[in-house]
Every structure is written in C-alpha cells, then in structure tokens.
C-alpha cells in the first residue's frame, strides 16, 4: 500500500501506519488493545460500541432468552412493571419485555441490510462520479441530489403501502434504495479531493490501471468516510423502519420495536396511562441511535483532529490550568510521546506524524495561557 493515510494524526498513525520500510519484515506493534486500535482510545466510540454490542447480542439470542412468548395472551391485562413482567403487559396481557427482546432482531437486521446495500450503492455512485468526472459526474450527482431532495418517508409509504405484504427484507430494500444519496454525495466530494493528490498522480504516472487506483489507492483512504456513512444509514434505517411500523404501513405480524409502539397506540396506551407499554421501545431506539451517533463522533474525531479533545474534559482542562479559546487545538501529550517513539523506529520522514490539517508549528495555533 503506497497510500498515505488522509487526515489522520499522531495517535491515528500509531496503529494504522503501515510503516513502509523496504528492509525487514514489518514489526507488529505490541501492546494493549488500545494501542493497537487507537479508535478504542476514544471514550465516546467505546461507549457506542458497548451499547451496540449489547443490542446485537440481544438480536442474536433474543428469542431464546425472552421470558414469555411475545404473542401469548394472559389474564394480566395492562399491568404495570412487576417482578414477573418487568416492562408490564399489553391490553391482551402480552409481556412487553418479551416483545421488545424478540423484536430486536428485525430492527437490527433491517438496519444492517439497509446499511450494507445503501453503502455499496453510495460507494459505487460516489466514487465513480468523483473519478470519472465530466458528463458521468454530472448525471450521477444530479441523481443523488434528486434522491436527497425527495422526502424519503412519503415515498416509502406510497411504495410499501401499495405492496400486498411488506416484510422486513422488502422494507430494507426500499430503505436502501432511498437512503444511499447522502453517502454518495460525501464520498464524491472526498474522491474529488483525493484524485488530485500526489500519490494518485504518482500511481497514474506509474501506469497503474484505473481499477487498481480505485481499489488500492483511493478506497483505503475513504474508509473512515465510508464507515461513517454506513453508520448514518443504519440510523436512518432503524428510525424509518420503526416509524413505518408505527404508522402501520409494514406488516404488523412480526415483532419489532415499531410494532410494539403500533399496538400501544392502537390499544389507547396513552389514555389508559400505560406508559410502560411505549416508553421502553422508544428508549431502546434512542439508545441504539445514540450508540451509533457516538461511534460516528469517534470516527469524526479520528478523521478530524480539531474536533478531538483527547483526555480534555472540562474538569480536566481546568485542573491543568488550560483555558480553551479560539484556535485552540487540544494536544494529548502522552499520545504524542508514544507516537514519537514509534515514528523514530522506522526511518520515516520527520514530519510524518504531523497531520495535514493541524496548523503548522509556525503559526500560533494554541493559546494556553498558564494561570
């Protein structure tokens, strides 16, 4: 890989720098998971991953660990949370907790399938638009602009509403068909800026084929953006799927969080004061959405070091006597120390760890008046 990682900085390079040394095998940096995956040093990203992991686990083993059959009708009608029914019961005496646990699978599955299909679509459209340029670019950009402007939900409603029976996978396909445009737009912009970088020009001068340039020079540098557009699409898919189920457009036979809310609404949960019926499902959606957003923040901060406040929470900064002002970029000294140590090992360019985006040392980028 000859590509230079884009817009990463010191901490990022400690783990991802392929150390382009000609002589000798590449030494694998040994250390804790945190050092190997600098992404994990980001607290927000870790929080997001943990929450997401919990719901993924629930999606996998949900049907086996649910305490009741979600469809089973019992005599405990509209009961509040208790030891047997943690989240209470519905108007038919069904266990709400079991419905949510069982429903996790379809929510996560629709999110995943939509995310994968839409991301593939957006990579194809975005990268080719950025690379081909000219008329093809105009056509592809116009296409993604059209899909961005058309409001997705009413479109999905008129498609799904006219289908005889819209199940989970149908919905995932429709959502993917309507949700790829944002990613394509972002990817096109980034590809355009990459296309003129020196390493791509060098590859072209070397006579590498366009396919090779796309696959091995461009795509690796788009990883972070692809990941963040994937996560954005998954969030969109989960929210849309829940909304569609809630308004009763999709099949109400299978359980999902939206179906729980649909039954709560049609069962007059609000007017009967049955808050336990609709509060947990919404909180689950919010938790998953929040987890995904946190992961996206992690990626954002990974890509754009200016957004990073590594280890500089408000309290921490006050303790160290730092007053954040304009033009302030927090520097994580410990991270720099480790990266410097690593950067010394291979005969790398002395400035290799200096990211393109951070201000050059000549300008006064930091204002850290010590008290």
């Amino acid at each position, binding site marked *: 890989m000859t590509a230079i990682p884009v817009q990463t900085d010191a901490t990022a390079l400690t783990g991802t720098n392929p150390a382009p040394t000609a002589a000798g095998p590449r030494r694998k940096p040994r250390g804790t998971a945190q050092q190997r995956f600098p992404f994990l040093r980001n607290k927000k990203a870790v929080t997001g991953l943990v929450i997401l992991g919990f719901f993924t686990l629930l999606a996998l083993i949900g049907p086996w660990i649910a305490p009741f059959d979600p469809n089973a009708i019992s005599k405990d009608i509209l009961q509040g949370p208790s030891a047997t029914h943690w989240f209470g019961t519905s108007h038919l005496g069904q266990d709400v907790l079991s419905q949510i646990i069982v429903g996790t699978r379809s929510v996560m599955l629709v999110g995943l399938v939509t995310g994968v299909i839409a991301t593939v679509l957006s990579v194809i459209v975005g990268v080719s638009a950025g690379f081909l340029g000219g008329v093809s670019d105009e056509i592809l950009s116009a296409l993604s602009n059209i899909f961005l402007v058309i409001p997705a939900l009413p479109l999905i409603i008129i498609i799904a509403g006219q289908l005889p029976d819209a199940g989970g996978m149908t919905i995932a396909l429709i959502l993917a068909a309507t949700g790829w445009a944002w990613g394509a737009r972002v990817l096109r912009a980034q590809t355009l800026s990459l296309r003129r970088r020196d390493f791509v020009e060098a590859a072209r001068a070397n006579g590498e084929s366009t396919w090779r340039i796309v696959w091995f020079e461009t795509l690796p540098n788009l990883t972070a953006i692809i990941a963040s557009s994937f996560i954005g699409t998954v969030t969109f898919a989960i929210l849309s799927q829940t*909304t569609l189920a809630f308004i009763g457009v999709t099949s109400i036979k299978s359980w999902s969080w939206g179906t729980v809310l649909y039954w709560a609404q049609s069962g007059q949960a609000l007017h009967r004061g049955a808050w336990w019926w609709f509060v947990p499902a919404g909180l689950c959606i919010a938790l998953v959405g929040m987890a995904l957003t946190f992961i996206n923040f992690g990626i954002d901060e990974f890509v754009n070091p200016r957004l990073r406040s590594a280890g500089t929470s408000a309290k921490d900064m006050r303790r160290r006597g730092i007053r954040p002002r304009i033009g302030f970029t927090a520097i994580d000294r410990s991270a720099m120390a480790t990266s410097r140590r690593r950067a010394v090992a291979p005969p790398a360019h002395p400035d290799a760890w200096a990211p393109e985006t951070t201000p050059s040392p000549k300008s006064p980028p930091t204002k850290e008046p010590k008290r």
Partner: protein
Amino acid sequence: MKYFARRIFIYVLTAWAAVTINFFIPRLMPGDPVQSLINRKQGQISADAAQSLYVLFGLDKNTNMLEQYIAYWQQLLRGDLGLSFANFPTPVSEVLAQSLPWTIGLVGIATIISFVLGSLIGVLIGWRRGTWADGILPVATFFSSVPYFWLGLIAIMLFSITWKIFPTGGAYDGGLIPGWDLDFIVSVLQHGALPALTIVLSSVAGWILGMRNMMVTVTSEDYVTVAQAKGLSESNVMFGYAARNAVLPQVSSFALSLGFIVSGTLVTEMVFSYQGIGFTLFQAIGAKDFPLMQGAFLVITLSVLAANILADVAYVFLDPRTRQEG
C-alpha cells in the same frame, strides 16, 4: 447567476423525477389495488372521474406507456389528482389544499425556530469549548436519536394527560368556526404549541451538533486568529468572523436535510391528529386511499422543493462567492 441557474435546473429535474416516480409506482405494483377500489365504488363514480383514475393509475390497458405518460402529465397540469376514496367524492386536490396550510404553518415555523435556536446554541457551545457547555452535547445526542413520534407520545402523556395543560390533539377546538377572531387564534396557538415543541426539541439537537462542530473547525482558521489579534471585540469575532463562515455548511445542509425533517414532522402530525398533510397521509394509509397517498407525496415533494429554493436564496445572500460573475 450561474450557480443559481444550476440549482434551478436540479430542482426542475427533481420535480420531473418525482412526477415520474409517482407515475411508475402504481404501474409496477403487483395486483391492482386501485381497480378493486374502483369496482367497489362502482356506480358512485362518474364516467369522467373514473377515466381520470384510470389515467392516474395506468388501468387503461388500451394505450401504451408513452401515451399514458403524456395523458398523466396533461391531467396533472390541470391540477387533477383524482378522487379521494376515503373522503368520497371530494377531489384529492381539494383535500390536500385544506391540509397544506396547516402543515406549512406548523412545520415551517417549528423548523425555522429549531434551526435558528440550534445554530445559536451551537455557536456558543463551539466558542466555549471545554467548559460546562459541553455537557449539553450528550443530551443533544440523545434527543437527536429519539424518533419524533415517540417524543410526541411522551409529550402528550406528560402535558395533556398527567398535567392537563395542552389539548391532546387536533389543530383547533372543534366547537369553533375557523376565522380570524381572537378565540380561534388562541385555540390554534394552544393546539399547535405541543406539536411545535416536539418538533423543535427533536430537531434542534442536530443543528446544535452540526454548528458546534463547524465552529470548532472554523475557530482554528487563520482569519479568526487575525481578527482576534486585531483586538476586535469577542462578540464581533464570534459572530462576524467565526459564525458567519460556520453557518454556510449549516445552511446547505439545511436545504439537503429538509426531506428528512419533513418526513419526521409528518409523523408528529399523525401522533397529534393535527390536520395537516401528514395526518391526511396517515388516514389515507388506513383507508387504503391510493389517489390521496400519491397526491400527498407529490404535494410534499413539491413543497420541499420550494423550501429548498428559499434556502438557496438565503445561501446566495450569505455567501458572496456565489454572487461572483463568471
């Protein structure tokens, strides 16, 4: 002006695409849900109205696709969207014309409040990075991840059922006759407050986060440092230099995410039974009223397009670079 011409071209293209999608969807669907509905209403539909529905839904088997497409356009340009099945025999255009002002009033005002408020808070948080203000971020993230309609449910539960401060639904008191008198206006404001609050609360977070991140990025630009070095007042640097530049991507993302926002707010109307387009669409789904659904989609898309054009005009005012000739 070149910038503007380009944008207008995109919008014309989008409008054409929306109409074309609307034309093809019923033709690509398996089965003939509309045919069965027409059959059920047989005798109640006049020959003219039936012909109009045949054209809209491609049930006229004697013509080829191109002829159907041309006939469809001709009908649309006359403003004929067919008959609504649920509100039989009212034309779809009439049903939508009644509900559109409510949606524009509620969604328009709430979205603008949310955008302005969110951007202002974002400027302040971005400027005071690393102070207590950062504590707003996790809260904002939570609210941006919550579905609009669920927040609506919670709002109804708290403010209409537990504490009876606001009415649970509807756009005005059923006992009043719509008109420009004080009682009616007060009633409209009372009914609109809770849905508007819900929309603002769930969409403001996105603007806060976007603006904050742009501010953080912009404040390390050289021109901000220079402005600071010149000794300009802090508020001047904050609003005149940093925010002025940070708001540009915010406005263009406002235009682009309008589609998402409108989708979310339509569902809010459904929860509050607020008689706008969203609620009309909701009723159309329940009643399998396909002409109304298709018409609603078209009207929503065209409204979003119009809002996009307004956002573009605002962008041209804010960014002098787009006004440069050549």
